């Protein structure tokens, strides 16, 4: 037929991929999705899309989809297919047996940021009300947990202060440790639109990314700092602002704790953080630091967008506090065109944060140690709850190795591929007695699992997502779940199997419960979202259709004022040395999404069939490497192989790769260091060495890489 077939039905839903949360129309003929088109009324995307949401949806019906539950007694045995009932009974009895033998805190769970708010909430309920402990975490642990910590400390809310459109009113845009053109493309396009209209751009990133330089859009200042020096640079920028009197005294006096500002100004104003001192340490021209500081503080509207290049460091939370401090110091909060905004990566990671999928807080960011909050949950759920914080995800693995943690329910996550220090994690899983993986496909983690519960994609369920701009929107079911259940139904049945009696007629009832227990979501309901499309939290009686810009009058801290945290620069313990003289940093690419669970099963792999290592020409030449060679990359923790390509995007001494393919095993190499406050892994700084792989078939057998000849380079330390 020469003419294209015409879709019969449209269902408005939200993209399954990144935190922009583009509104899409899923167009179907019968039970087949024939295309996804961007929804013009989607408030996050206004009719635009990227390759992933627009085209890469076929993974949902990929032959690898598991449709039947499976169990096995040991990970060395093959999987046995069983019925749903058998799977639930087996999982429940195993978990209870383990708790009987090793104690109540020997099991835990992790929720998925690609599942709905309703599903995340039910997972926290499973762990808290049914397991009886607080060993619940979410993947934000390994990406934006420092955002949660750092922004809560300074401005009282660990979330983006603005909505995306706000950037259209910005005069200066500062992007720190993020690459929106690749990681949040639709937002990146909006940002470029504003820059073409004349806004200035400052980028702080070790690489010359597409965000730094693309058609009609070039950064006015690019600080290509050495990985691990974020806090030093941000303090140095603050130094210039404070010393040159560029801070907004009126704003600080009226909206912030003035005394804390004075302490902070004294810290950053000290000689230690002058650009002349910090520039050489960070590998940046001191004059550029001054230009960035003057540009940002002049505004009039300056906005900050940041990503994992800030958070995934041993000073991740400190880095976020620096950004909060800068925003407060220059009065860049509480109106359009300003703010400090984390670019949260996953479709519903903000939801996971809001709904208490953390070991130390209930939903609404209220501490588990707080009696009043805990009692309100106990009243609603009908059971006594644990009053002490539980284990964070990395600590669950540590505890497995000492025999204290034996069972785990993992929904929609693949820690073996995505978490750092892979050998450590695999060893931990091997010690566990009941690992339950609830996912769409078999993955690296399921190799160590005892129960596999087939999951459902976001095309197969009803619920809500909360995007990076705090936007709560409706995920609507487009096709029937392949395995027969929506994910939230599976969690409920597991709860039932363990003896906790609860049922919900549909996902909307779960939203009602979570709205009751989460102040910022109290006004959210399917009815509201059907009527207005989407709403940014807080959505409550004061703001029945949501809140676009935060902090307009008060900061949500006890005294309503913002505060300044003292952010001394503490260099990472990860140092380069003679043995490991290069710094590896990681990132993302447009066409693949995180560990590639979905995108590798679509045609997107044609663009990025493998992860490659980017190195400068000089670094390659020193090691006898040519473009396209296979190389081994080694750190203190392990080694893996990659293909190397020459790049002008990184500085000498810094190398870069992505982590989308399991074969890459990038995380075998990453370190065990993490953020002081949240244990967010320091993915962005690993000391490594690279050497050519000598293939046994090589026709011209090259002698080993020229490492025997002593090199002129000095041993460097990251200060």
């Amino acid at each position: 037929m020469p003419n294209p077939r015409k879709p019969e039905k449209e269902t408005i839903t939200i993209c399954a991929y990144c935190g922009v949360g583009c509104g899409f129309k899923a167009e179907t003929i019968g039970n087949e999705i024939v295309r996804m088109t961007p929804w013009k009324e989607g408030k996050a995307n206004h009719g635009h899309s990227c390759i992933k949401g627009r085209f890469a949806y076929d993974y949902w019906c990929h032959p690898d989809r598991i449709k039947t539950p499976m169990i096995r007694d040991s990970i060395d045995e093959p999987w046995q297919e069983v019925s749903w009932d058998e799977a639930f009974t087996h999982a429940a009895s195993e978990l209870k047996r383990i708790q009987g033998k090793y104690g109540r805190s020997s099991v835990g769970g992790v929720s998925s940021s690609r599942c709905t708010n309703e599903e995340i909430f039910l997972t926290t309920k499973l762990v808290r009300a049914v397991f009886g402990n607080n060993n619940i975490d979410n993947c934000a642990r390994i990406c934006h947990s420092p955002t949660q910590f750092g922004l809560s400390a300074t401005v009282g809310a660990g979330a983006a202060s603005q909505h995306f459109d706000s950037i259209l009113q910005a005069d200066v845009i500062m992007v720190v440790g993020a690459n929106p053109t690749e990681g949040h493309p639709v937002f990146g396009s909006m940002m470029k639109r504003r820059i073409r209209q004349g806004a200035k751009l400052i980028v702080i990133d070790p690489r010359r990314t597409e965000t730094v330089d693309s058609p009609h859009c070039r950064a006015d200042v690019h600080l290509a700092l050495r990985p691990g020096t974020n806090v030093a640079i941000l303090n140095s920028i603050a130094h210039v602002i404070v010393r040159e009197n560029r801070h907004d005294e009126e704003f600080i006096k009226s909206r912030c704790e003035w005394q804390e500002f004075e302490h902070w100004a004294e810290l950053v104003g000290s000689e230690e953080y002058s650009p002349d001192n910090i520039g050489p340490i960070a590998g940046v021209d001191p004059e550029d630091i001054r230009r960035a500081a003057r540009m940002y503080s002049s505004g009039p509207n300056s906005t900050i967008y940041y990503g994992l290049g800030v958070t995934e460091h041993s000073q991740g939370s400190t880095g976020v506090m620096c950004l909060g401090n800068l925003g407060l110091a220059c009065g860049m909060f509480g109106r359009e065109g300003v703010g400090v905004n984390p670019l949260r990566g996953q479709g519903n990671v903000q939801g996971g944060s809001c709904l208490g999928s953390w070991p130390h807080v209930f939903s609404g960011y209220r501490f588990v140690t707080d009696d009043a909050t805990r009692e309100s949950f106990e009243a609603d759920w009908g059971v006594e709850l644990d009053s002490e914080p539980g284990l964070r995800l990395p600590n669950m693995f540590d505890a497995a190795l000492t025999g204290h943690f034996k069972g785990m329910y993992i929904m929609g996550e693949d820690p073996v591929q995505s978490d750092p220090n892979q050998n450590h994690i695999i060893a931990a899983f091997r010690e566990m007695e009941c690992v339950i993986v609830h996912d769409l496909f078999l993955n690296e983690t399921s190799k160590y699992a005892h129960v596999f519960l087939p999951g459902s994609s976001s095309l197969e369920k009803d619920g809500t997502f909360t995007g990076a701009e705090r936007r709560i929107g409706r995920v609507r079911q487009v096709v029937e779940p392949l395995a027969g259940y929506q994910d939230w139904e599976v969690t409920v049945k597991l709860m039932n199997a363990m003896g906790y009696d609860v049922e919900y007629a549909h996902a909307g009832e779960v939203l009602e419960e979570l709205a009751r227990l989460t102040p910022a979501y109290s006004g959210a309901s399917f009815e509201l979202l059907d009527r207005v499309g989407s709403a940014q939290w807080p959505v409550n009686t004061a703001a029945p259709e949501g809140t676009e810009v935060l902090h307009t009058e008060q900061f949500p801290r006890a005294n309503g004022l913002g505060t300044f945290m003292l952010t001394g620069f503490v260099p990472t313990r990860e140092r380069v040395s003679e043995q490991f003289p290069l710094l590896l940093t990681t990132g993302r690419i447009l066409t693949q999404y995180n560990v590639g669970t979905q995108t590798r099963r679509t045609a997107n792999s044609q663009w990025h069939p493998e992860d490659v290592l980017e190195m400068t020409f000089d670094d390659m030449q020193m090691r006898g490497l040519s473009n396209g060679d296979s190389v081994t990359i080694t750190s203190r923790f392990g080694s893996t192989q990659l293909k190397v390509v020459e790049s002008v995007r990184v500085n000498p001494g810094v190398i870069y790769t992505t982590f989308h393919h399991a074969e890459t095993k990038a995380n075998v190499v990453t370190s065990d260091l993490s953020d002081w406050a949240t244990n967010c892994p320091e993915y962005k700084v690993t000391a490594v060495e690279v050497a050519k792989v000598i293939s046994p078939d090589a026709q011209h057998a090259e002698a080993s890489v020229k490492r025997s000849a002593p090199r002129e380079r000095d041993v460097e330390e990251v200060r």
Partner: protein
Amino acid sequence: MWNEVRGLRDGIDYGTPPRDGKPVTLTVDGVEVTVPEGSSVMLAATEAERAVPKLCATDMLESFGSCRVCLVEIEGQRGYPASCTTLVAPGMVVQTQSDRLATLRKGVMELYLSDFPESEIPDGWSEFHRTLEEIGITGHRYGKGQNHFGLPVDDSNPYFLFDPAKCIVCSRCVRACAEVQGTFALTIEGRGFESKVAASQGESFMESECVSCGACVQACPSHALVEKSLFPGGYERAKST
């Protein structure tokens, strides 16, 4: 400010981006309508439910004025201005229909039709087909002349293809790649009859800087750029008679 994104509506194409601005009142076909300053006459006509037929205009992109279909008559102005590039003015009086306008539009559409594969006209549901119906055209007076039916289909991208035979060179794809996505991968190569859509330096879509965002596919009014998933058995080139 931002009405150009926030003012967009599903199911309505205003033709040019909504604006923020002081209200301006004008009359379209006798209907009084008030729109923000900076809006086009085309947008005002759509608001007044007197929408003008169009091809190269769409409300996600700035106006271009190349197709010459959206012509209107404005009291006190000579000629037949394009409603997409004409801004509203207070008290303006616009006519969207007249015999002369109908003739002009039919003329333009016949020219488009003479270079469009005829076998694809029945059952087509693209914007181009709808506009043909709106204007009341089913055939053209020209015999078989020079055309673009021989240009190769670019199906290098796994998700969408480009069939130049159906391209009406409205430039919506080029503009979408520039204004909406910001990648600037597309351009119009050549002039006059030789004009054609090209990716980067005349490479295939896959080899070019295209990031496969689909903005061009979304913008294309004639299904020249179209999702491969809408052709379950594979894409068959139209046979031109």
